[in-house]
């Protein structure tokens, strides 16, 4: 029972990370049809800069962790907004060029991060409580998992409330369904594009800071390795569906954890198999719209 509890809660923690990255990807693709391969770079730059800020003011306090999360969100949001305004905006409806530009940006940014921070991981410390464990049903659960789950749940709730109750949220929901009709109602949908990129970048930035505590380090490749699973989560959840991304993130991460433990480290393979099954049985994803 303790093993199951450990795998389940660790899976939820990892799922929280996947969700933070996948939420932005899903909204960006759903609204704009852009496959953003540079999304992992938003995560990595945020994690590095947040780590730089936290270590300068003393990384072991809750205040510095809070500030690091804020820095991560702001950096992620700004870098994402800049990417949309400077690179993506010129390439709407030109999907091949979008892929080339975002893949190029992702590769170049990893090289840039390696140039600035080196190729070795930079180890991260935080408040002492995060390094401790809590006993749940006999399992000793690392406390950072609880932080991940709580922050991801808060981000999910905030995004859902934003989408449900604000004018921009209404524009984004309508745009995911029929972008050209939103334009035909006299709405400048490009502002929504920039906003969605900013929100997605901020969520990825928060994810980057939390990922550094989950793994214990920041590395130039961290974003790229999480991005692969975030794409899988996005497709399984249904492109454009935030709730779908949350659900799929939990499914993917929990299955990954259980398969790694019980099936001899086959977690990644099981995730790919799950993706194949979903694509065959329900191509629009768990909560994606028909057509």
């Amino acid at each position, binding site marked *: 029972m303790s093993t199951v509890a450990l795998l389940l809660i660790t899976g939820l923690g990892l799922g929280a990370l996947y969700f933070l990255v996948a939420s932005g990807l899903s909204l960006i693709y759903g609204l704009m049809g852009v496959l953003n391969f540079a999304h992992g770079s938003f995560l990595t730059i945020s994690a590095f800069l947040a780590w730089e800020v936290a270590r300068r003011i003393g990384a072991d306090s809750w205040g510095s962790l809070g500030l690091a999360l804020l820095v991560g969100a702001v950096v992620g949001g700004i870098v994402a907004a800049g990417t949309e305004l400077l690179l993506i905006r010129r390439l709407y409806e030109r999907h091949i060029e979008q892929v080339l530009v975002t893949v190029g940006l992702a590769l170049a940014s990893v090289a840039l991060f390696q140039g600035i921070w080196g190729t070795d991981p930079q180890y991260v410390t935080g408040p002492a409580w995060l390094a401790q464990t809590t006993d749940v049903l006999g399992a000793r659960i690392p406390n950072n998992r609880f932080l991940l789950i709580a922050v991801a749940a808060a981000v999910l709730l905030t995004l859902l409330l934003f989408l449900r109750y604000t004018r921009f949220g*209404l*524009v984004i*929901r*309508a745009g995911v*369904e*029929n972008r*050209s*009709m*939103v*334009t*035909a*109602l*006299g*709405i*400048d*949908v490009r502002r929504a594009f920039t906003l969605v990129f900013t929100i997605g970048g901020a969520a990825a930035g928060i994810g980057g800071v939390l990922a550094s505590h989950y793994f214990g380090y920041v590395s130039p490749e961290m974003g790229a390795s999480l991005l692969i699973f975030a794409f899988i989560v996005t497709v399984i959840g249904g492109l454009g569906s935030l709730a779908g991304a949350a659900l799929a993130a939990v499914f993917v991460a929990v299955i990954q954890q259980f398969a790694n433990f019980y099936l001899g480290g086959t977690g990644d393979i099981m995730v790919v198999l799950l993706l194949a099954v979903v694509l065959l049985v329900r191509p629009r994803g768990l909560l994606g*719209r028909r057509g």
Partner: protein
Amino acid sequence: MTGEVVLRVSGLSARIGHQQVVEDVSFDVPAGEVTAILGRNGAGKTSTIKGILGLIGRSGIVELEGERIDTLATDRIVRRGVGYVPEDREVFASLTVAENLRLAERDASPRRELVAELFPELITRGAQRAGTLSGGQQQMLSLSRALLNDNRILLIDEPTKGLSPKLVAEVVAALEVVARVVPILLVEQNLNAARRLAARLVVIEDGRSVLSGPASEFFEDEERLIRMLGVHGSGVGGVGTA
């Protein structure tokens, strides 16, 4: 107001992908009345409307009350006062009726009373998802989105398409009321509806405007009606969409 040109289209060409679907179309839409675009299936009627709005690639000159709008993006054209009711309604199925209406509101004082007066059923169904409405109700919602704002002209594409005769009558009656408030450029396949609403006609054939003038003259000339549209003057429908 009648007589002043609210919308002038000169040499409009439009394409979908690489295919030319409208070529050198020219006509005026006077204020205070309904101008209908007629033509056979695939003639280029819907593409003309989309070309005016910039929803598809186009060239040529489009002027709204004397100001060129063909260089503007679609959202800016609409904000200048060109309301659009698309073919097939295109309501946002996952949003509620109230959300669909709220999304369309551009003006500080949207004309909710007019919508409530014309389509009271929509107000009672505010919390219902638009995708669960009947075809007629979706058409009312689509029309309402355009009516909420103080537009200078409405471009309405096939408002009676796929509706029962009873609903067609309701929609036509509503458009008669609307036409008193704002001029309309109407694409209509139902000839009876066009006859009842339109003061002027533009006939499009193979992507080109071949006739533009008073509706009464055209409807009186049965032979020309058959030649151009393939229907008799008493026919309902038969004229298709592009």
